[in-house]
């Protein structure tokens, strides 16, 4: 039972990684670079929700979510317009370094604005739900439900709407997509909107679970990287499974190894994956699925 509980904890932790990884992998799929500034979108979502729940606005958290996501999306789009679009003809490494710079800039801007003190939303506590020996907390349940809802939405978008299919087409072959008259601008914006929304919602959940600090995004970003690579870059469903796999692996490791090595597991997974299956578990081609 102990191990089952560890696996459940792992799946839930992993579904949060997946929420971040999906955004990261979509950006990679379309723009072909790894966005280091994605972590700051996570933090930004959490902090802007804090802004809306604090005076003078003092909205309840549930109402603060929408404007917070909107703010994060705006920043995501601004990043694209001011930095990534002008650079899109440069090398991928130029984009990557620019995103590292952006990450620094935003993280420090958050610290500038909100200070580096720990902050929190003051969410009420509740004991977890028990099913026999298994216990799942309310926060864990909300994370799981959010992840399921968002990823189901994504599945619907990708398979049932023209825009979603166009997005996958662009990830497959941007040149051909352009020839086919697919509106690249709109698709690019959609990618940023989706990535930022997922990041912001995930960030708010993380902050509800614990607390807010400017570094909160970076800490989770490396796990998201691992999930992306595990699933194969650009592969949305791979990222989901990759996230869960990493969550489960590191939580199971707590039972046998020193928890000081919890992160080590994620990194080891990255290295091993890259060495034996450079394309990820599922994919051997580029493109977004």
């Amino acid at each position, binding site marked *: 039972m102990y191990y089952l509980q560890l696996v459940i904890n792992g799946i839930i932790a992993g579904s949060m990684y997946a929420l971040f990884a999906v955004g990261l992998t979509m950006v990679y799929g379309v723009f072909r*670079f*790894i966005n280091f500034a994605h972590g700051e979108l996570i933090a930004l979502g959490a902090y802007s929700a804090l802004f809306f729940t604090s005076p003078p606005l003092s909205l309840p958290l549930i109402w603060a979510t929408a404007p917070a996501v909107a703010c994060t999306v705006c920043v995501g789009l601004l990043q694209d317009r001011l*930095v990534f679009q*002008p*650079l899109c003809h*440069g*090398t*991928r*490494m*130029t*984009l*990557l*370094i*620019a995103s*590292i*710079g*952006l*990450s*620094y*800039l*935003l*993280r*420090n*801007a958050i*610290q*500038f604005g909100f*200070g*580096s003190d720990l902050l929190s939303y003051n969410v009420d506590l509740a004991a977890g739900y028990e099913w026999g020996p298994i216990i799942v907390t309310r926060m864990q349940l909300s994370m799981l439900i959010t992840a399921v809802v968002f990823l189901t939405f994504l599945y619907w978008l990708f398979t049932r709407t023209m825009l979603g299919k166009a997005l996958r087409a662009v990830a497959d072959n941007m040149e051909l997509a352009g020839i086919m008259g697919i509106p690249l601008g709109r698709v690019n914006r959609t990618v940023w909107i989706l990535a930022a929304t997922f990041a912001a919602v995930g960030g708010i959940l993380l902050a509800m679970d614990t607390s807010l600090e400017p570094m909160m995004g970076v800490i989770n970003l*490396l796990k998201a*990287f*691992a999930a992306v*690579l595990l699933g194969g*870059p650009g592969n949305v469903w791979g990222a989901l499974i990759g996230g869960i796999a990493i969550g489960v692996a590191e939580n199971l490791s707590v039972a046998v190894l*020193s928890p*000081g*090595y919890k*992160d*080590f597991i994620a*990194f*080891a997974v*990255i*290295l091993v994956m*890259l*060495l034996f299956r*450079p394309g990820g578990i599922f994919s051997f081609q580029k493109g977004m699925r």
Partner: protein
Amino acid sequence: MDYLLHIAISTLIYAIFAMSLNLELGYAGLYNFGHIAFFGIGAYTSALMAVGGLPIPLGITSAMALAGLIGAGLAFTVLRLTGDYFGIATLAFGEMMRLLFLNERWLTKGPMGIPGIPRPTLLGGMPADLLQYLMFTVACTILVFLILHRLETSPFGRALKVVREDEFVAQAFGKNLLSLKMRCIVVGSVIAGLAGALWAHYMTYISPNDFTLQGTIIVLLCVVLGGKGSPSGPLLGTCVVVLLQESLRFLPIPTDFGRHVAPLQGMVFGLMLVLLMLRRPQGLIAELHGGRGA
């Protein structure tokens, strides 16, 4: 005076470190995000040996050798990967090394770090003072600079340049390309190991906190700022970064505002990177060397 010496020494050590990254990044186009690990390996090796009572020159040599060896191991395993994959793999490697430093307490004393690392002694048996240590560092810097400069003009360096400039030629190189890159990483790691050892003996204290991803990013900024692919680029870049960092200490900032200074500094660093990429992705001094545009 000691403060200036301190700045000079840390700039030079960082410049050596930046030059070693530049060898991989600027010449071979390998984005090694775990380069700080070799700095750390060098620092820990030399520090542990010196604290254990072994002669410092032996420690420094072993530091370089071990860094080179591990570099070869890393290169052997991850060189098949290209571009961002290589970057992420090395990033993972760097973090794994840091976690090893942190958790293998029997060896590294974990988060407590290693205090009391001896400075090299002179002939008379006295530990070197700052000025003498600076001389030592200057000598090392010049040596590394000359070696790298030599490499640049050697067939090896020219081959690397061709490889970086032209994908097709690179593909034609095939197996040779791998061995070229491999040698690049090994030499880069050895030099990073040297920088790490110098650092350990200068600071006299090291802990896993000194070897985080942040360290790699600062050095990356130094290299990119100065201009990739020329030995003098990282030197200049390091000077600018260190001076910027230190000059902030001298701005007459009201105490109440003090807590905003650090985030502001971070914002400036971040903005610099972004603007550099937007305006001059080839760095500040590339034009002197006829470097290509973006």
